[in-house]
């Protein structure tokens, strides 16, 4: 599958699930177990993505580098209830700073 195919499949799939939610009569997907799972699935995926893109190195290696410092700054900003852009900005600036210092 080429990259364009991945984009097409993602676009079509993401649109269809959005439309499905708006169109399905309320109650069809409202079973408690389904709702719990739907709430927890993004938690798992987002946590995994955060971990992998912070500590994942090339070719299956794990790495502790400047990104970890940046994400620490982002976590601190989140604890201080900073706005979204400030959180992202803190991660970027601290990562760049740590890297410039040779981290």
């Amino acid at each position, binding site marked *: 599958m080429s990259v364009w195919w991945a*984009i097409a499949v993602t676009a079509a799939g*993401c649109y269809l699930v959005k439309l499905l939610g708006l169109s399905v009569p309320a109650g069809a*997907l409202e079973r408690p177990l389904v709702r719990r799972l739907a709430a927890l699935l*993004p938690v798992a995926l987002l946590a995994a993505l955060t971990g992998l893109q912070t500590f994942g190195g090339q070719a299956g290696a*794990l790495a502790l580098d400047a990104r970890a410092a940046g994400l620490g700054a982002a976590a601190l900003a989140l604890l201080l209830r900073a706005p979204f852009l400030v959180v992202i900005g803190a*991660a970027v600036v601290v*990562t760049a700073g740590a890297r410039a210092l040779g981290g």
Partner: protein
Amino acid sequence: MTQDLPVRNPDPPEPTVPPPDAPHRSRADRAVVRDALGVGTAVGLSGFAFGVTAAGAGLSLPMACALSLLVFTGASQFALVGALAGGGAPATAAAGALFLGVRNAFYGLRLSGLLRLPGRLRPLAAHWVIDETAAVSLAQPDRRSARLGFAVTGVTLYLLWNLTTLLGHLGAAALGDPAAWGLDAAGPAVFLALLAPMLRTAGERAVAVLAVALALATHPVLPAGVPVLAAGLAAPLVLCVTRRGGGR
């Protein structure tokens, strides 16, 4: 990209004999528009980080713009691009992005009752059913404000997200190596900012911790992109344990 909405001042007391309704209504409308513009602008600008990340992952300008125009759900876009950059197979990358997109169906379920959109508007509005529009709409006290909040957040975000994706990709070449600017931290920071408001209960925290452990443990042995899907198992696992333990 859920974020805390600004706490609105309690509405002024309803006048006992409502005047022709216009002044109160327009004040309430302005408050909704202000909230919606704030969320739309802040998150829309982070499309810049997406554009740069997409360029760093080797995606062409049409590819990055197609993602923002047609997928238009940030976490899925970052996930797809991150998986491709990490050497993941396109099919695996798309699967991860799709799994992340499923939550929008549940926003849609809650929004359909609240907004009660006419059938012909639904296919159009569906494209804007994402974290931010849901957060703004669900925070409104009535249908009129919810519709207004949905529309203003949707328009603002859609325009800015696509414009900043374009600019980010174009600017990436001038920036050189995105890592030197720390821009490789933007993707995970977006994920963390989305995740943070979801971590309210012990169950949710357990899922997050288990998911990170599963992802990092399988990262050395599974093909790129697959560890994210494996970590998705943390959700049913924790659900199983808490149900058996009489958690609910």
